[in-house]
């Protein structure tokens, strides 16, 4: 029997492609899903050539809720693993002033990814197997002045994944929550990030593959982030509100 594919939602991103490479290197066929997926032809060729696996392209818009069923129906087969890497940071200053912009951030980071994973979860549950991976963010661990709109959506996604895991644990379906810290991607290009806290996309890919293979529940890509966030979470609110973070 040929292995079932791994579906990457948000495949245009550096992290999405890196995760695709990690799974393809382990011999999994890949389904790349993104808006305007025809533009991923070079990435498709590259994945297929390097790893000798089948790679297919699929149009997917995380904001188009009505299109989700059609998208899933259009996949050649139900994937073994589905990974959502969809995300959009926006500008905090803009998110504070422009509610439409804030809603876009919330929908892209929470409503959309949770919705598509919910539909996949039901299909996986009916089949009795599969792994769902949600890439959220350490920003969801505690709201901070500098990015709480984005962080709140990521927090919602973390809670959603946690509940989904709880619900599906006895149904043969596993849910992995991935919390990358800083990652060196197009989204963070030009930002001055601390080297020790910043992962390469390939590290995210390797970490997600390992987490799926080992059935992990919640992972920080770089372990140091567990410590950093444990400290940040435990600062008393009375102190926290006075900090610049």
């Amino acid at each position, binding site marked *: 029997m040929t292995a079932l594919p791994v579906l990457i939602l948000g495949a245009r991103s550096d992290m999405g492609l890196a995760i695709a490479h990690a799974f393809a290197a382990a011999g999994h066929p890949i389904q790349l899903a993104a808006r305007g997926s025809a533009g991923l032809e*070079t*990435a498709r*060729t*590259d994945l297929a*050539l*390097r*790893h*000798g696996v089948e790679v297919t392209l699929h149009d997917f818009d995380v904001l188009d809720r009505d299109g989700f069923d059609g998208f899933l129906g259009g996949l050649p087969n139900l994937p073994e693993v589905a990974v959502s890497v969809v995300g959009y940071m926006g500008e905090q200053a803009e998110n504070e002033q422009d509610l439409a912009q804030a809603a876009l951030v919330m929908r892209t980071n929470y409503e959309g990814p949770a919705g598509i994973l919910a539909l996949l979860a039901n299909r996986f549950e009916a089949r009795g197997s599969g792994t769902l991976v949600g890439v959220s963010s350490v920003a969801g661990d505690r709201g901070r002045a500098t990015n709480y709109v984005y962080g709140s959506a990521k927090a919602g996604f973390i809670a959603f994944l946690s509940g989904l895991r709880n619900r599906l644990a006895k149904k043969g379906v596993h849910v992995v929550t991935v919390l990358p810290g800083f990652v060196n991607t*197009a989204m963070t290009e030009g930002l001055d990030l601390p080297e020790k806290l910043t992962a390469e996309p390939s590290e995210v890919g390797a970490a997600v593959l390992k987490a799926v293979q080992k059935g992990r529940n919640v992972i920080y890509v770089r372990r140091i982030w567990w410590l950093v966030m444990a400290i940040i979470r435990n600062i008393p609110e009375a102190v926290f509100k006075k900090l610049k973070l």
Partner: protein
Amino acid sequence: MKLTGWGRFPVVETQLRAPRDVAALQAMVTGDEPVIARGNGRSYGDSAVGTHTTLDMRHFDHMLSFDAETGVLVAEAGVLLGDVIDAFLPRGWFPMVTPGTKFVTLGGAIAADVHGKNHHVDGSFGTCVDWIDLMGPDGQIRRISRDDDADLFRHTLGGMGLTGVIVRTAIRLRPVETAWINQTTLPAPDLGTAMDLFEQHAHVPYSVAWIDCMSRGAHLGRSLVMLGDHAKRADLDAKKARTPLDAGHKGALSVPFDFPGFALNRWSVRAFNELYYRVGAWKPTKALVDWDTYFYPLDAVLKWNRIYGRRGFAQFQCVLPLDTARAGLTELLEAIAEAGAGSFLAVLKRFGPQDSAFSFPMEGYTLALDFPMKPHTLPLLDLLDAIAVTHGGRFYLAKDSRMRPDTLREADSRADEFEALREARGLKDHFASAQSERLSL
């Protein structure tokens, strides 16, 4: 930001930009300021650092097609040689020519026209390049080859990125039966013996000598000459023959911090070299070695450039023509031993014939070593330059970080022709590195 080559010297202030597609690259190339493309930063000096803008080409890292009949791979310039090996060695293909690190990009390998241990048999990297897609000063990509704009093609091989930005290329891989190398190690008590061994084994595909440049007098040039060829299936034992193209994966160590300056001195290096020679001379002469250990021993120590500390190091690599090689190498080794400044890594290699427009190799012997950056280092290197020039030698720009412009002109009459081509094609104002400015290319 501040940027350096692998040798961490010199440090250059530059604007580093990482285009993600051809349109972005075009906009940067056609801008007002000169640019230089950078691959994975493995050239030692300042050849991939711009004094204005440096183009990080690592987003151009896609493989585009592979012909399983001919072994021709089409790929973008930012693909690493190691990626090519990872993808195609399991299918029975290996790079035709590889330098001592697999962490070079294809674009970088072309720009430096790198050589391997098989130069005397197969030539430099350029021999396996079918064509290059080169972005010119107008932002247009042209496919150049031995048939189309041969002059520009010839000068792009070894042209240090100064003829345009290499975007894509087609290279030919070689078929191999296994992932293993038959290695033979021959001790040579002095330079003459080492050179005789090279001449005797000229038919063996891979050869290189590790040379102890601390030893003097009768032991001057004491070496271990290492020969190799791709093992056949029949050479493997039953266990290895089950997966002949998989030699297993090794973990890599990483040097976690900069070594302090006192860690490397003439005594520690002498002790290391003594030990290395004794162990090498004592070990069985024939061994089956996996491809990674054979070709890339240093890659197993990631960030090994940190061994030389924050001040970095300088490489010296010259090639001397056959008729003067013996006298020239003797003089070079005497000067190095005299200064007591030898390095861990001194390498001697026999080059075969090569006719190229601006690339480094020519028929003869090449000597490569590195020196930690210390006050006496630069004067010593100037002295070594002078010795090499006297003997008709020339220098490897991928390793250079400090040569004087007049030395380059004295050593290599092709430099003027290269500069003239750059002028004539309007390349000079668009493509410049710290090195090209230093050497006024």
